[in-house]
């Protein structure tokens, strides 16, 4: 993530067509186990440290059935300007015997150009930056976008495996 007070941000959805995100639903046993296992999947597939995964919202209800909801924000730095930014929403409820969970993954590609200093705000800098972006960086962003889609598909695949494993545990 670019460390600047003022920045110009370019954001693209990794899946450009609607709905632009991945949604998965699970009905079966051991729902609460998804929380921790899914976190491991994210960490391994995106190859990011734990500090790159922010858990913004965490709800947990304890009772006869466990009810939970969590939001995660994943940052995967690609270079000093670009990072993959994934918003994940997860919710579920149930017991060890039966329950349901729903997961939504929204991957984005973000490029941020700092505009803090007078030099960075100057017309000449903007001219050079635009030229450089169009000539060299545009293709690189396309490649990263492809990686972003691949990683999201991989998470989806690993989640399907996890769901199968949980169903077989019963």
């Amino acid at each position, binding site marked *: 993530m670019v460390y600047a007070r003022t920045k110009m941000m370019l954001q693209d959805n990794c899946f450009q067509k609607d709905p632009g995100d991945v949604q998965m639903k699970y009905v079966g046993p051991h729902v609460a186990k998804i929380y921790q296992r899914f976190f491991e999947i994210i960490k391994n597939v995106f190859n990011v440290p734990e500090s790159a995964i922010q858990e913004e919202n965490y709800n947990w*209800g304890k*009772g006869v059935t466990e009810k939970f909801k969590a939001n995660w*924000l994943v940052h995967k730095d690609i270079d000093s300007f670009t990072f993959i930014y994934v918003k994940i929403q997860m919710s579920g409820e149930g017991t060890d015997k039966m329950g349901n969970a729903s997961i939504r993954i929204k991957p984005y590609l973000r490029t941020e150009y700092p505009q803090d200093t007078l030099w960075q705000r100057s017309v000449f800098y903007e001219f050079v930056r635009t030229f450089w972006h169009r000539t060299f960086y545009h293709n690189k962003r396309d490649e990263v976008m492809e990686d972003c889609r691949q990683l999201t598909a991989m998470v989806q695949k690993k989640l399907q495996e996890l769901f199968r494993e949980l169903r077989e545990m019963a």
Partner: protein
Amino acid sequence: MIMVKIEVFDDCLAPARFIFLNYNGKAPFDVYQKISGMLQNFFEVSSSGVGETDFRWDNSGPNDDFYARWWVQKKMARATTMWVHIMVQGAKSRETNEGHFSIRINAENRTSMKSNNPFFRALWWTYMYLFYNKRRRDYLKQCNDLLYELRDELKEHYNLQQIKGE
């Protein structure tokens, strides 16, 4: 004489603004005692570094509602101080001791400099640009990690599912 002050605020959780933790279950008011008892040791600050600014208790209805706010001030360096704000709001049933609470945590690092000398101020900006911004970035990471550790400790207290590091 009025002193010129430059103050830079860095949000520790950016791009998110807050950490929220919501709980439903037994003994929700324990969270108040847990937080008040742990802040000083957890952030390694003296008693003047912690403050409870607001505490409300409402027992007029069938449930006891509570609300509390704390701040923590931790010096990271001569020019930089970390400010943490914690807010807890919840309710518990008087008969069953069951209920809920929500915690909101956020923090910022404040870097400040006071001087009336324009030359010194220009020097300070240069120093920031060349060296200190990197340190500020480290402080931001430390701050972010501390907040998530705090949240995990609260999760542990209530035996909630959490992500265990390898």
